[in-house]
C-alpha cells in the first residue's frame, strides 16, 4: 500500500506492508537509524518519534496509520555540528553514556518544551517517563533539561 507522509518536513511516499510498523519503515526504508530498535513492545521509548509534534512509540505504530501525518525524528532538531541547544546541555552535563536512549529522550523533552516552556522538574520527569535509560539513572538528564529551562527563562526575562 502506498503511504504518503512528511518526514522531517519532506514529503515521502513508501510502499508499506499491511502490518508494517513505523519503526521498520523509518529504519529500513528511509535509513533513519537514530530511531532505535529496543524492546519492540512499547516499553522502552528508544523508538520514539514525534507524530504531529507528540511522542509515540514507532515500534507499535502502524505505518499505514501514519498516512498524511507529519513525523519528526531527532534529525529535525539537530545534527552533528549543529546541535539543538538542548543537546548542547546534555553534552555539557554528561547526561548520556552509551547514548542509545538519547534520541528518544530528547524528542520527548522537546515535545514537552514546545507545549510548556517552563515545566517543573516533576513535569519533566513525567514527560520522559516513557524513555528508559539503562546507563544514567536520569539525574544528569533531568538536570540538563532544567538547566535549559532556566536559561531560557532568564533569556526571556532579559528581553
Amino acid at each position, binding site marked *: *500500500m502506498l503511504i504518503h507522509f512528511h518526514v522531517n518536513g519532506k514529503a515521502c511516499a513508501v510502499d508499506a*506492508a*499491511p*502490518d508494517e*510498523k513505523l519503526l521498520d519503515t523509518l529504519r529500513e526504508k528511509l535509513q533513519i537509524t537514530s530511531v532505535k530498535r529496543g524492546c*519492540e*513492545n*512499547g*516499553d522502552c*521509548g528508544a523508538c*520514539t518519534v514525534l*507524530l504531529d509534534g*507528540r*511522542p*509515540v*512509540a514507532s515500534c*507499535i*505504530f*502502524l505505518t*499505514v*496509520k501514519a*498516512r498524511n501525518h507529519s513525523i519528526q525524528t531527532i534529525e529535525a532538531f539537530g545534527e552533528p555540528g549543529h546541535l539543538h541547544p538542548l543537546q548542547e546541555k546534555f553534552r555539557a552535563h554528561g547526561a548520556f553514556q552509551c547514548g542509545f536512549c538519547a534520541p528518544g529522550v530528547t524528542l*520527548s523533552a522537546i*515535545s514537552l518544551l514546545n507545549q510548556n516552556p517552563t515545566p517543573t522538574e516533576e513535569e519533566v520527569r*513525567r*514527560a520522559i*517517563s*516513557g*524513555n528508559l535509560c539503562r546507563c544514567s539513572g536520569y539525574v544528569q538528564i533531568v538536570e540538563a533539561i532544567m538547566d535549559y529551562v532556566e536559561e531560557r527563562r532568564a533569556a526571556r526575562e532579559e528581553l
Partner: protein
Amino acid sequence: MRVKECFCPSSQEQALALLAELGDALQICAGGTDLLVMLRKGKTEAPFLMDISGLDLSGIREEEDHISIGALATLTDVQESPLLNKEPYRFLQRAAGWVGSPQIRNAATLAGNLCTGIPSADTSTPLLALDARVRLASVRRTREIPLTGFFLAPRKTALEADEMVTEVLLPRFPSGDYRTEFRKVGTRKELFISIFHIASLLEMEGPLVKRARFAMGVMAPVPVRLFRTEELLTGKSLTPALIDEALETMKTEVHPRTSRHASKEYRMMLAENLLHRFLTEPPEGAEGGNLC
C-alpha cells in the same frame, strides 16, 4: 499468520460493511498499542486489519444529557479535555494519565482501553463509577449498553463480531460536593500494568453521603462495581463503625485471585487499605496517582 490487508475506511458505513463481511477475521486497530503487541507475540491472529483513524469519531463533546467521548479520542485527549476537568470526572482524567507512558497515551484510545477487556484496563474503574455507557454500531443496528454489561470475561466483551464501539457516553451530573479518587498499584513507579486499581466517588450533602460509587479492577475476572457497599453508605454519615462495615461488605463483592504478579491476600489488603483511606479522608479535590 500473515496479515493480508489493512483496510482504511473513510466512513463509518464502509467500516461497518467490512466488519459485516469479514467478522472475526478482521481486527480493528485504533491506537494499536495493545493489538500490535498481541499480534507480535502471536497471542492473536488477524488476516485483515482495519485502521479506523480515518473515521469521524474523534473529539469529546458535551451533549444535552451526556458527554460523548468518540472512539478515536486518545487518552491524552481525555487527560487534557476541559469538559472533563471538573468533578465528578477528574478521576477519569487521572486514570487516563497513568496509563503507560506519554508515548502510549498519545496513540492509545479510551475506547480501545475498554475493548481490550483486560481486568487491568485502568480507565474501566472510573468509567464504571460514572455509570458510563457504550454505543455500539453494526450494519444491523445501533445499541447502547451500560459498561457494567460490557465486560464478560478477561479479554471478552459484549461486542459481537460485526460490531464496533463508536462512543463512550458519560451521564451529566448535577453540581454538588463531589470527592473522587483513582489509585492504581503496580510494581514500579511509572509504566506498569496494574495489579490493583480502584476508582471512588462520593457526593456529600453536609455530613451525609448522598451518592457513593466504587469500582475495582483485577479483583475479579472483570472490573466490578461495589453496589452493596455503595448502598450501605448512602444517606449515612461516615462514622468509623460504618466504614468498618463497608469494608466487610466490600470483601463479599470481590474475588481476587493469585497471579504471578500478586497474591490474592495482597490484593485484598490493598482493597481494604485504599478504600479505608478514601472513606476516612475523602480528598477535597480529585486525587489520583500510582503507588508501588
